[in-house]
């Protein structure tokens, strides 16, 4: 397969609102940062991929069409990807596919989101579910993942303090990340004292509604080497999906189990196979695992093969997966739990791993990181994406 690398990364500071820019202007901010980082201009770019999740979150249908002039993409091939929360990473995979096809040498993946602009993201997201059976419960992404958290805790013996430890770890990481939305460190007791939203999830177990932009520039091997820029090579990609129906993941005839993330594991394993990863805890230095709530990170770590099922919370309690600990570090950026601009959250996962494996992650750098994995989850935990990046094209030891 034709090698493809990320040669430029751009992200804005993420915050609750931006009233100084329109959606296209926000996309432009991220695009310019990535193009500048890559040392290229739009003249070099052959095609564009725009990640944009539910239209209702920004209040305009097909908003990707509105941002064409803002990024200078008139007349170029462009397309939009939407796999819910997985959108950003699916878009980077789509950019990779453009170049791997042999038809393009440089692709810009650029997007933005302003989740708070919808006033009630959870009301919008409730409309994901079937109008007759599941929408009236009422399901939203919080109540859905509260059910999954209950199941995980019941199956593996974790509790609310175990969830709080995830938040504590990620907030400590986010404090080192100038782009993160929630950057204030927090203690376990403080997490446990926040108000209950949907048992067992409390306010500090949940991600914020973030506004901001993210972009990456991808290039073919020839172009990437000629650019002279640090290159994060895409060594493997994988996607998978699960049943739409929440009810099909419980009961005696269940197709899945809310405690586990089998389809996420399937997507990650596909990317591992393509990358030649066979011993993840030894071969992965850094993992940016999409986990909008503390509870999700537990089974995401297990799906990534960084420990066995039911072991992640014990490992986190022991201090593992944190900056400074030996072994793979999970979400050194603070992760989705601290920053969730839905359309680009998955893209930021790949961008952060690209920065890590090229040694450019500043205060949140995992020392010596050379191989990393980025994941994303979309829909009602239905669409999954994974990408392995490395700073070399040799066999991963």
């Amino acid at each position, binding site marked *: 397969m034709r090698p493809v690398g990320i040669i430029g990364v751009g992200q804005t500071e993420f915050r609750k609102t931006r009233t100084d820019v329109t959606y296209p202007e926000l996309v432009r901010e991220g695009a310019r940062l990535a193009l500048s980082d890559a040392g290229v201009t739009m003249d070099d770019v052959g095609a564009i991929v725009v990640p944009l999740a539910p239209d209702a979150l920004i209040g*305009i249908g097909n908003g990707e*069409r509105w941002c064409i002039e803002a990024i200078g993409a008139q007349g170029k091939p462009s397309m*939009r990807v939407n796999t819910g929360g997985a959108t950003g990473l699916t878009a980077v995979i789509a950019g990779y596919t453009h170049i791997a096809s042999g038809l393009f040498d440089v692709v810009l993946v650029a997007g933005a989101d302003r989740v708070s602009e919808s006033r009630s993201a959870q009301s919008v997201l409730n409309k994901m579910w079937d109008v007759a059976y599941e929408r009236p419960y009422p399901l939203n992404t919080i109540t859905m993942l509260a059910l999954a958290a209950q199941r995980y805790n019941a199956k593996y013996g974790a509790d609310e303090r175990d969830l709080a430890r995830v938040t504590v770890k990620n907030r400590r990481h986010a404090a080192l990340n100038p782009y993160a939305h929630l950057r204030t460190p927090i203690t376990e007791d403080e997490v446990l004292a926040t108000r209950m939203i949907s048992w067992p999830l409390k306010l500090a177990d949940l991600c914020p509604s973030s506004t901001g932009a993210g972009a990456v520039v991808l290039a073919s091997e020839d172009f990437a080497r000629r650019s002279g820029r640090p290159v994060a090579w895409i060594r493997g990609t994988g996607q998978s999906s699960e049943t739409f129906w929440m009810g099909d993941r419980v009961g005696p005839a269940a197709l899945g189990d809310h405690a586990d993330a089998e389809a996420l594991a399937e997507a990650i394993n596909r990317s591992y196979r393509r990358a030649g990863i066979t011993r993840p805890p030894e071969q992965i230095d850094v993992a940016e695992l999409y986990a909008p709530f503390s509870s999700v990170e537990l089974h995401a770590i297990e799906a990534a093969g960084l420990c066995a099922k039911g072991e992640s919370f014990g490992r986190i309690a022991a201090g593992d997966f944190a900056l400074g600990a030996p072994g793979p570090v999970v979400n050194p950026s603070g992760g989705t739990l601290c920053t969730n601009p839905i359309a680009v959250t998955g893209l930021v996962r790949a961008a952060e791993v690209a920065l890590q494996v090229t040694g450019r992650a500043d205060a949140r750098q995992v020392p010596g990181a050379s191989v990393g994995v980025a994941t994303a989850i979309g829909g009602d935990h239905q669409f999954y994406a994974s990408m392995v990046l490395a700073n070399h094209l040799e066999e991963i030891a």
Partner: protein
Amino acid sequence: MSDQSIAVVGVHHTPYRKTVETQSLEEMAFAAARGALADAGLTIADIDAVVLSTTDQVEGRVIESMVVNGAAGGVSRDVTTIASSGEHAFAYACLSLLAGQAERVLVVVWSKQSEGLDPSHADWLGAEPFLLRRLGMTSVAAAGLQASAYNARYGFDEAAVRSLRDVRQAAAAAAGNLVDTDATGRVVAWPLTDLDLPRSCDMACAAVLTTSGHVTPDQQPAWIRGIGWATGSYDLGDRDLTTFESLATAARMALGPDRLATDIDVAEIQEISTVGAFAAAEAVGLAPPGGGPDAALAAAINPSGGNLFADPGNASGFLRFLQAAQQVRGTAGPAQVAPQPRTALAAALHGFAGQGAAVITFAVHPGGVA
């Protein structure tokens, strides 16, 4: 340019219906997917990637591909949803095959516009909120602006418009590709009347694409020889509305440097209006500027009747691709052109006044992809 050869080996769509009341969206998508697999002589077990396309604006679900995914065979498979247009889903399936990401891809695209209480309102919400939304911009209004610009430059050829309508209607009726309308001929966006605009319908469509190494002797491949797509300015004021610049770019990309549209045996072209049909024929390269009326009325253009008499929204451009592939495969049924075409071109448009476009060229023989 890629030396890899890829082909469409299975095609299916649900019947042309203004309103489908007896099937859910999932059932329609399932029927389309199963039909395309059967046409290819495959089962879902043979498919390693699924590409879906949805607009999420008309039918009251925020991520519509979620509910369709299972019906389209996506569970446990590599699934990508392309939300910008159905034709982009086809292009992305091609990229996946050329990249070696998949060996057989199932693409499922749908539109059940009748579920929406007011599709025109949803369409209006595609206008940015600061200026265009206040001006009442919709696809119909944009088509009217495009038509008035075309007529202002080349003159209003009322006879050609009437002829185009008659020719398309006759072809659509002969092929069974036509739905009822409430149109009466009232002006809806000057100079266009409701008879000049596409008639909305419900439909799910699917196609199976594969690489040359996986085409079996009992399959009838339509070889994909060129892929092109482009997006122009969102701002209509930045565009020359007498033509479709993005379509011209996409056509040049798909045809490559050595081929002309006029060398193609048959074309299926999405038309945003009767007058838009003339500009589309010109943009594709079938006629010089202003020569669209004659070119659009040629027998080899839209033998299926095109989309003016049955238009499945987000699937409309994708359906043009399937119709063109069917011509090359010799499986176009009542719409089949004789003798069987050796080459075909399909063109799709999306966005206000064709902001974006995609073009695919097909042939009976493999030979790489431009």
